[in-house]
């Protein structure tokens, strides 16, 4: 364990954090809606120095055989070496796959997208929704930045017009059929303490991590725990706080 990790752990015992935040404080969160004109919907989220851009693109494809009446959602995250000296080139690794799947589950399980409205011809043609997550600068808590950006990008997305087999991207009018805005909130367990929105330094010193995605009515729609064992008390705290923090973040969308 390096000196900084030890320092963070020592601080946390006195309920202090390395950047002076309270245990339940997010860093400054900003959201820019639709910065990318070519995307159907997009958002740029900054949490402290963490920067993530998410773009939504739509296309037409064949439905899965077991869901012939439903549109398709595909979430993909690309941890480009542009965003951090620790990211490497090559096929998606564990970390980017986990990130994409956490965001995917939040959207899917909350039934955020009304997939039945994305059916064009049953069993033959449906809309495909691509959510592409691109971190630009990684300074911790990519999950929350990505989740918030994805929610905003979907909420502000306009579908291209479909004429026969052709997609007309110049005429985007109809909003995406959206029913929910799932928002993930991530906590780090450092020693036995729980902090919200871990920075990169805290992620290095943490021994566990938990992400809880919640819906507008306060229901939980996805959980992902990582790392070491966690006490029930901390899990309960994370569940309670995620609803409150989720509500605040949802206002930005």
């Amino acid at each position, binding site marked *: 364990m390096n000196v900084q990790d030890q320092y963070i752990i020592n601080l946390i015992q006195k309920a202090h954090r390395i950047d002076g935040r309270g245990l339940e404080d997010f860093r400054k969160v900003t959201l820019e809606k639709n910065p990318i004109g070519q995307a159907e919907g997009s958002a740029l989220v900054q949490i402290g120095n963490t920067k993530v851009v998410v773009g939504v*693109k739509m*296309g037409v494809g064949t439905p899965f055989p077991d869901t012939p009446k439903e549109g398709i959602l595909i979430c993909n995250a690309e941890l480009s070496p542009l965003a951090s000296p620790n990211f490497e080139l090559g096929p998606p690794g564990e970390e980017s796959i986990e990130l994409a799947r956490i965001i995917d589950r939040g959207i899917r399980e909350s039934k955020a997208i009304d997939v039945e409205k994305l059916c064009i011809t049953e069993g033959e043609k449906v809309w495909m929704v691509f959510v592409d997550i691109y971190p630009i600068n990684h300074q911790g808590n990519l999950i929350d930045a990505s989740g918030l950006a994805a929610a905003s990008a979907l909420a502000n997305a306009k579908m291209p017009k479909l004429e026969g087999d052709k997609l007309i991207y110049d005429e985007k009018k109809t909003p995406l059929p959206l029913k929910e805005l799932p928002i993930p909130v991530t906590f780090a367990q450092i020693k036995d303490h729980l902090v919200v929105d871990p920075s990169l330094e805290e992620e290095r010193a943490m021994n566990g991590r938990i992400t809880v995605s919640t819906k507008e009515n306060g229901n939980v729609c996805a959980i992902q725990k990582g790392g070491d064992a966690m006490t029930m008390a901390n899990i309960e705290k994370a569940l309670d706080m995620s609803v409150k923090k989720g509500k605040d973040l949802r206002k930005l969308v």
Partner: protein
Amino acid sequence: MSTKREDGRGPEDIRPIKMEVGVIKNADGSAMVSLGKTVAIAAVYGPRELHPKHLQVSNRARLKCIYSMAPFSTTERVRPGPSRRSSEISKVTRESLEPALFLENFPKTTIDVFILIVQANAGTRTAGINAASLALADAGIEMRDLVTSVAAGKIDGTYTIDLAGKEEEATDCDLPIAYMPRIDKITLLQMDGDMPVKDVKGTIELAKKGCKILYEEQKKALLKKWAKEGLE
């Protein structure tokens, strides 16, 4: 030379230019360049240790450039990951930047340049080169000159710079160059089209002229960040 273009520009006008350095805090140097609706960001990491070791070059640094497009940057989604097109652009980008650097000063290391096209509307390779060159300068890596880049063509008999939108189909040729204005050397030159030699020469001259305009903008962007810190 008076024909109006679809976006109202004159034939020698470049689209609205925006440049900013230091947009990616993690990187040693970074920049964003937008030309109209084309937006490129670039990050430079290095000079840093090169692994695996057998890739190291004993008497100079390796320059690595990776050009990629975000899937949401175009009208139809681009599949993420490398393609034949992006590999070629990565190569010519590297070759357009190498002549500006003193790679021999950093033996055995690597200088990594990552270019991401966030929004594409023609001229992405040239926007990428402009951003990469700025990012290298922002990283404090010594350079012979800034590399600046733009494409030109000839539409209805008129030399036209910084082609955008439908102009790419209307032009007799698409000719991107990268250029070091101070030492007057060209580092990238590609062309596809059908044109006599005289016209090719004319197109290159116009592109050089455009590069000089971008050069001034690049210097302004660097000064905006660095002059504040007393390094003017």
